[in-house]
């Protein structure tokens, strides 16, 4: 058992556990916090995969940004409704069955796939490569992303704004 394996398992348990908590806990607020944990755990996985830049992005944008926004939304809406938000599940059996079969089939198929056993080192620093790719080959999607974000913001502000 190398350190890597131990680390992976710890992270895996942490991830799966917190993910389960996200979908099972009764308290919406707690759910969000569990999600933050899961996202952070994912950042850990990224670190294990030597993708430090992405881990950073993950923590900053995701765990930081998303969670904050969600919490903010919850607070706003609770103020709007004036009560605590209930957070229950429905059709657990059907959902569980579908999810379980999905997982089973996925794993089964993955088990048959020939997968690369070891990591292949990158030619250069991944962060730099990402940056270069974004500026060359993927310039177009990068620009589109800008439009997308612009529209999203515009849309979000339009929808969330109370009717004047």
């Amino acid at each position, binding site marked *: 058992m190398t350190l890597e394996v131990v680390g992976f398992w710890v992270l895996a348990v942490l991830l799966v556990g917190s993910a389960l908590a996200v979908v099972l806990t009764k308290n919406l607020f707690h759910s969000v916090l569990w999600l933050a944990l899961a996202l952070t755990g994912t950042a850990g996985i990224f670190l294990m995969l030597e993708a430090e830049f992405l881990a950073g992005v993950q923590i900053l944008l995701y765990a930081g940004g998303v969670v904050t926004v969600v919490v903010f939304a919850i607070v706003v809406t609770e103020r709007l409704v004036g009560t605590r938000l209930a957070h229950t599940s429905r059709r657990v059996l059907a959902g569980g069955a579908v999810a379980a079969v999905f997982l089973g089939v*996925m794993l089964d*198929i*993955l088990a*048959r*796939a*020939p*997968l690369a056993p070891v990591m292949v080192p990158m030619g250069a620093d991944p962060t730099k490569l990402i940056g270069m790719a974004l500026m*060359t*080959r*993927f*310039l*177009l*999607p990068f*620009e*589109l*992303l800008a*439009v*997308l974000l*612009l*529209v*999203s913001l*515009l*849309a979000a502000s*339009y*929808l969330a704004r109370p*009717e*004047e």
Partner: protein
Amino acid sequence: MDPSWPLVIEGWLFALVLVIFVLGLFRRQAGDAVAGWVTLAGLVGLSIAVWNAEPGRVALEGTFVLDELSLFGKRLFMVASVLSVLATQAMTHASFRRRGTEYYVAFLASLLGMLVLASARDLIVLFVAFELMSIPLYFLTGFLKGEKAAPEGAMKFFLVGSISSAVVLYGLSFVYGAAGTTDMSAIPALMATVNPLVLLGLALMLGGLGFKIAAVPFHMWVPDTYEAANTPFVAWISIAPKTAGFLAIFRLYVEGVGEGAVLWVPIVSVLAGVTIVSGNLMAIPQSNIKRLLAYSGVAHIGYLLLGLAAMSVSGVGMVLFYLVAYLFGNMGAFFVVQAVAASEGSDEIEKYQGLARRSPVLALSLLLFLLSLGGIPFMAGFWAKLFIFWAVVEQGMYWLAFLGAVLTVVALYYYLVVARRMYIEASTNPAPIPVPVVLMVAIGGCVAGILLMGVYPEPWARAFMRVAMTLFSTS
């Protein structure tokens, strides 16, 4: 600038988005009819450009191509958008008057996504374009946020859509995992070796794309969204994003794959069959015409999938033909619905009682659209259905053709129910329904479309077959 250069059109559209956006910043108080007209003018200009474009160029390391298929898509998107924007000009709703620029910005952004999607030859470009197309749609669905149904429709569309995006992305990750590159030209080689990872990825993506094109059982957002959203927009999403979905499917599953594509035939056939049957059946009991058109639209997706199931040149070519025929028929029908709803304040089919006496031309137009959708001769829809069956029969899939042909009868049933309201029953209110000029132009355009295609389908069919040929020849 030469529109044949890749990205020229997208660039101008980007500029148009910015213009409208800026317009919105400055002209907030002035009412936004101007935004609509600017959009319309811009789109018309771009349409001309698209029509003058020649295929064959590639840009950005092959991630962006301007080939026959992408030009087909772009032209279709342009026509649909122009028609939709025309009809939007007739909208008198408060949201449009106050916040029209937001609407047009989102609309154009989504269109930009579609245009790029049509040309994407790289998974990343495809995905981002896909999202750029989708996310504004959620917003546009909820645009009439003061209406009772709009937020609900937006919420459902958004949630199901996001999940589907996640599934698409998940599938995409496997395709990438198999190929080690996001270049889509790597897929054929992988398909040839029946790589499990790529199959898994494409299967997952099929589910996600199934949502976009609204195949059963991924269709459930469709009726609710159609009912909730404003009609010109519905007319647009009933065709444009679906075409985008089909283009993506062609790129991923068909282009260059050749014989290997046959692998997908069984599942596509099943999807097609299920979609045709349930779409048509569920349309029968509808009392709201938008829901009816929604379900019938689902059924039409089934027919399109039928063409896809043929996995042949003619199959793809006929799908393209069908898409165009569907564009005119369906959008036209929605425009009539818009006109009636503006006057009667409801989308219930009851309101169409005696329409033939009140507004004969409007009723006749709707009848023509419905008949085209139902596949009646001398309308575009007839050839569309026929070509599809043809392609299917060519592959020896007689039962599918039978199924499809028989279910058209069910479809005609509910179209005729509408016709019955309009023509057979008498109206209590004899006043004609006012139709704004812009809407009239849009409806007239659609009528011209279905009749032109219906009476002389040859040039259209030939062109679409040529497009389809390119998908198969580049292997």
